[in-house]
C-alpha cells in the first residue's frame, strides 16, 4: 500500500500525477479521483480575484499524512495520492487532488469522499480571498461540521 502526500507551491496538472499513480498499482479494480479548483465566484456572489492558502509546516503535512493513512486503512486501499496547493492561487487553478486506488469501486469512492471532508474541514489550512482589491479571511462553515459528522 502506497501513500503519496504533497504540499505544492506551484500550479500543477492533476493528470501528470494521476497517470503514474494509476500505473503504479497493477491489479486495481478502480481509481476514484477528486480535483477541486479555485472558483471565481465568492459565496456572496462577488468575484474572487485570487485565493491565498497559508499553512503551518510542522503540522500541516504530518496532519495530511495521518489523514491519508487513516483513510487507506479504513477503506483498505491499494494506494492514496493526496496533493494540496499552498500559496497564491487564481480562479480555475487546481487546489486539491485526492486519488484512491482500490480493488473495488465503493472503497475508492468512499475513501475520496472521506479524505475530502477531512481535508476541507479538519486540516491546517487558512484561506483568504482577494475581492474588490481587499483580502478577506474565510471562516469555518456550519456545513463542515455536518460533513465530518457523517464519518463518526
Amino acid at each position, binding site marked *: 500500500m502506497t501513500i503519496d502526500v504533497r504540499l505544492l507551491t506551484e500550479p500543477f496538472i492533476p493528470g501528470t500525477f494521476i497517470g503514474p499513480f494509476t500505473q503504479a498499482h497493477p491489479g486495481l479494480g478502480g481509481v476514484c479521483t477528486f480535483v477541486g479548483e479555485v472558483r471565481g465566484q465568492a459565496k456572496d456572489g462577488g468575484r474572487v480575484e485570487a485565493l491565498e492558502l497559508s499553512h503551518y509546516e510542522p503540522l500541516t503535512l504530518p496532519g495530511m499524512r495521518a489523514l491519508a493513512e487513516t483513510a487507506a486503512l479504513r477503506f483498505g486501499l491499494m494506494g492514496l495520492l493526496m496533493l494540496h496547493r499552498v500559496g497564491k492561487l487564481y480562479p480555475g487553478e487546481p487546489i486539491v487532488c485526492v486519488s484512491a486506488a482500490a480493488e473495488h469501486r465503493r472503497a475508492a469512492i468512499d475513501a475520496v469522499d472521506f479524505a475530502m471532508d477531512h481535508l476541507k*474541514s479538519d486540516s491546517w489550512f487558512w484561506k483568504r480571498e482577494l475581492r474588490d482589491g481587499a483580502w478577506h479571511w474565510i471562516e*469555518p462553515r456550519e456545513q*463542515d461540521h455536518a460533513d465530518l459528522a457523517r464519518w463518526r
Partner: protein
Amino acid sequence: MARLVFLGRLADLAGGAERAVAPGPLETTLAALPVELAVALLDERVRIALNGELLAEPGGIVLAEGDELAFLPPVSGG
C-alpha cells in the same frame, strides 16, 4: 530568544507572521503584547503548538531559548 508564530487572521492582528520574544513565562510575554492581540490569542478556539506539537492544555507555558510557539485559529473549512 523564542518565537511566536501567528496563523491566519492572527497574523494580520499581530502585524506579521512571527514575533521574536524573550524566553520566560508565556503570561509575561502576552502581557507585553497589544491588548487586542493578547485577547485574540487567548480565544478558546485558538489552538497552541509548542515546537510543532499541539498542546492539550495551554496553561503554565514557559518559553525556553529557541522555542517556537504557534497560535492556530480555526481553519477555513470547505
